[in-house]
């Protein structure tokens, strides 16, 4: 019977596809999306791209560190991304490399707070093998405990690699200050102590796979130069029998913030003093319009043509750089302004200058011409950034994973030019307020020997 079951599902897969009308190319995004949903819930998007025999194959699973709800299990989505390369019964560890390696694919993955994205980028000629081996690992991943324990050490090595610069520590402290209940409290890497304990969590890793690696929680994007009908036939054949359902695990909601918060880091090595100003803001998953506003707000407040940049970077030269770490999140996350200072003495001036720009905007004083320039920049910037099928696939996958919509990226691009000066101001007044503020400062501890232990 087990052998018949996949065949039955395969037939259903052919009989009952849910095909959306193609999302046509536009000025903002010059490629057409052909989207189908298989009966098991897997969304499959094909994007023709004139890449002369090259394709990008992108799978995005809507799981990230956001989904790590159990204490002691932080960093697992990212760790699991590593384990996805460990093979199955049909293709044991090492075989993926021999099959895909032979075609020369760039085969990699990354994890964020909200998504895990896998990509293979290389010749169209390998697509049949790629579809088969990808479907197999998403359906049937299998790895041994020793292999799991060894890979945990590679993750620890990744943490060590990232720990030399202040950014990881800053993200850890900012998240801890901003979130008391929501899982955004920890970074995607996870708490160091949890990473060190990962080798003991083999059984949990199996649960994690069953829980989140399901067709209804996954979107597949194929971008490039290929025969669509043949590819869809293979996709249905190999992914059709995948039949798990995503678990319902609720992520704790973050209670409203009542009053400003602060956090501070003494950095034990020479580095520039840093200042982060953050506010809790709506997520892109539920408020795409607010995501468009925040995207534009980054450059409005701290971009290379902003008054703060002109004052702080160019004229007074108090900072090396200003900017923002904002990125789209599924749930309410943070809008930030960041400054890399030249001297601790200027911290107050820098902070005040940035906050004055926020106040000015909240008071309704919007430079409409500058907003228009930012919207033009966003439009042309997106066109310039889509240089290869891989670029297109990662952008589409990222936004689809965060928003849950296969055309999330186009929708985002389309909403950018519609943002009005009044909306920019209203958003600022509503969300970038004094009692939702989180201030993070970092001060280097320098001595004659260049740091302490």
């Amino acid at each position, binding site marked *: 019977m087990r052998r018949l079951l996949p065949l039955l599902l395969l037939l259903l897969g052919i009989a009952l596809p849910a095909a959306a009308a193609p999302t046509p190319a536009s000025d903002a995004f010059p490629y057409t999306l052909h989207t189908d949903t298989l009966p098991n819930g897997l969304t499959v998007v094909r994007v023709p791209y004139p890449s002369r025999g*090259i394709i990008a194959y992108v799978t995005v699973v809507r799981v990230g560190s956001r989904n790590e709800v159990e204490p002691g299990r932080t960093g697992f989505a*990212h760790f699991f*991304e*590593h384990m996805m*390369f460990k093979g199955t019964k049909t293709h044991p560890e090492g075989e993926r*490399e021999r099959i895909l*390696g032979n*075609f*020369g*694919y*760039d*085969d*990699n993955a*990354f*994890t964020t707070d909200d998504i895990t994205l896998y990509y293979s980028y290389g*010749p169209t000629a390998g697509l049949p093998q790629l579809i088969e081996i990808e479907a197999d690992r998403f359906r049937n991943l299998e790895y041994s*405990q*020793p292999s799991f*324990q*060894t*890979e*945990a*050490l590679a993750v620890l*090595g*990744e943490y060590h*690699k*990232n*720990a*030399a*610069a202040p*950014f*990881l520590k*800053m*993200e850890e402290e900012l998240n801890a200050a901003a979130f008391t209940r929501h899982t955004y409290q920890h970074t*995607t890497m996870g708490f160091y102590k949890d990473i060190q304990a990962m080798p003991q969590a083999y059984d949990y890793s199996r649960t994690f796979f069953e829980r989140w690696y399901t067709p209804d929680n996954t979107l597949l994007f194929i971008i490039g130069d290929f025969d669509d009908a043949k590819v869809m036939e293979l996709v249905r054949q190999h992914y059709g029998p995948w039949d798990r359902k995503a678990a319902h695990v609720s992520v704790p909601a973050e209670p409203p913030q009542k009053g400003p918060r602060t956090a501070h880091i003494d950095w034990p*090595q*020479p*580095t520039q003093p840093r200042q982060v100003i953050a506010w809790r803001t709506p997520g892109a998953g539920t408020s795409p319009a607010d995501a468009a506003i925040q995207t534009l707000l980054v450059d409005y407040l701290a*971009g290379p*043509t902003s008054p703060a940049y002109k004052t702080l*970077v*160019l004229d007074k*030269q108090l900072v*090396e*750089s200003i*900017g923002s*770490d904002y*990125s789209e999140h599924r749930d309410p996350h943070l809008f930030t302004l960041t400054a*890399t200072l030249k001297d601790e003495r200027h911290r107050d001036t820098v902070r005040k200058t940035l906050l004055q720009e926020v106040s000015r905007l909240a008071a309704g004083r919007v430079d409409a011409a500058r907003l228009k320039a930012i919207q*033009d*920049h966003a439009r*042309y910037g997106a*066109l*310039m950034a889509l*240089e*290869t099928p891989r670029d297109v696939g*990662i952008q589409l996958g*990222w936004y689809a994973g965060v928003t849950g919509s296969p055309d999330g990226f186009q929708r985002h691009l389309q909403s950018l030019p519609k943002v009005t000066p009044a909306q920019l101001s209203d958003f600022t007044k509503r969300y970038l307020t004094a009692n939702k503020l989180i201030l993070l400062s970092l001060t280097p501890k320098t001595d004659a020997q260049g*740091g302490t*232990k």
Partner: protein
Amino acid sequence: MKTRALMSLTALLGLAGCATTPKPPPDENAPPPAVPAQAAAPEPAPRPARPEAVPATPLRQPKPMEQVVLARPDSPIVSFRLVFHTGSVDDPKGKEGLTALTAQLMAEGGTQKLTASQLLEALYPMAAELDVFVDKEFTTLSGRVHKDFLTRFQDIFTDVLLAPRLDAAELERLRANAISDVENGLRSANDEALGKVALDALLYQGHPYAHFTGGTVQGLKAITLDDVKAHAQRVFTQDRLVIGLAGAVDDALAQALSARLSALPAKGAPRVELPAVPTTAGRTVIIQKPTLSTAVSMGFVSTIRRGDPDFFPVAFAMSNLGEHRQSIGVLFTELREKRGLNYGDYAYAEHFIESPGTTYNRTNIARTQQDMSLWIRPVVPINGVFATRGAVFFLDQMVKEGIPQERFELMRGFLQGYTRLWEQTDQRRLGYAIDGLFYGTPDFLEQYRQAMSKMTPQSVQEALRRRVQPEALNFAFVTEDAEGLAQMLRSGAPSPITYASPKPEELLTQDQRISSSKLPLRPEAIQVIPAQQFMEK
């Protein structure tokens, strides 16, 4: 600079690509490799001796303002790529960093018509890119713009070179940033980059390649605005320039660009004569700084570069050992996948600088005297010596035993496809074409693929034996307990490793060989440098 590698998409693309893949499990039923251990091969000829020095055979010199045009009418984007044959080798002694600072000031500091701020405002709505990158011998000014803004951008892009503002306040701003890049960036925030720069400094001691391209702290402090003005006239000249154009371009644009750039000084300063580089082996530098881990780089000055008949087979072999950030390499499989030592381990047949957002080498960083290197990403300090021995062990094994036939075929398939990814953008296609002019290697990647189709495991091994000698290695480490590491290296004592998970017997036996193998370093040539003194002057 992006700040949060795991949260920002751009940064993810650039920095945090997080890979794994498999190890080939030992297959006891597999046939013996076709080119296996020495016992099965014919008695190899004695290895040629390594020369005492690598001479500076000059690169080829394209004609002044030679053009490379790669038109692609289906693209709406125009790519400009101006490659000047100047780099940090042109920095005067005591003014290390002058070329980089000059180039930066031209690219960012405004033009005679536009202040720095106005320059940013002009470029911004077009989302145009205007970047500069300085290496040892080459400086690349690249631009990209949508054809909607071509005329306006072309004026600005050429003004940056022809009529730079060279403003004193901007010089101070960029100088402060450059000093901070050394003091806070290089020395403190990126142990991996620090290890690589330390290896460069060690291999090329006393050579114009030795100092950090971005400059030394004292060198940067000594630079005056007059130095910058004079230097721009000396090195950004017609005779040092190759003009690259790609995408939505036509003859008229190419001619107009050349006509404008003919306002550059015709001839620059005489080219710096590079000295021969001694091939001294077995030296070690340990950079001491607070850190959780130990970063390792090792390498030697190469006797070949592109254009040499041995270059392709050696490049092939080094990709087999460790193609950058791909899981297919031997070092990745052995050190990361099987042993969990770190995040990755790679090998390079020529100098490698990761092109942002990719896993590929930059283009237009050609060097007269190349180096080969191995890169071990940070390991926990207790495993530092073992990991180093492991990398040398697998390099040595490849040179002595060659690449088994099955593995050879896999790597050939991989590189036939993977090298196509190296030329998927206009800027990269231009970069390869321009490098080809200097190395004398037209159609370089296609030539590589053709050469691979004719290679055999034997031909690769012969080239390896001629060109790659593990005993020629030099070592750079970044770690906290520098004295402890130095003592360990001096003693030559075994560096056993233990694992928290069960390992196959075969691997444990191999570990014993690795942990007691002799590292090709000289105990008297181990030097410890506090990070705070590195690249001071």
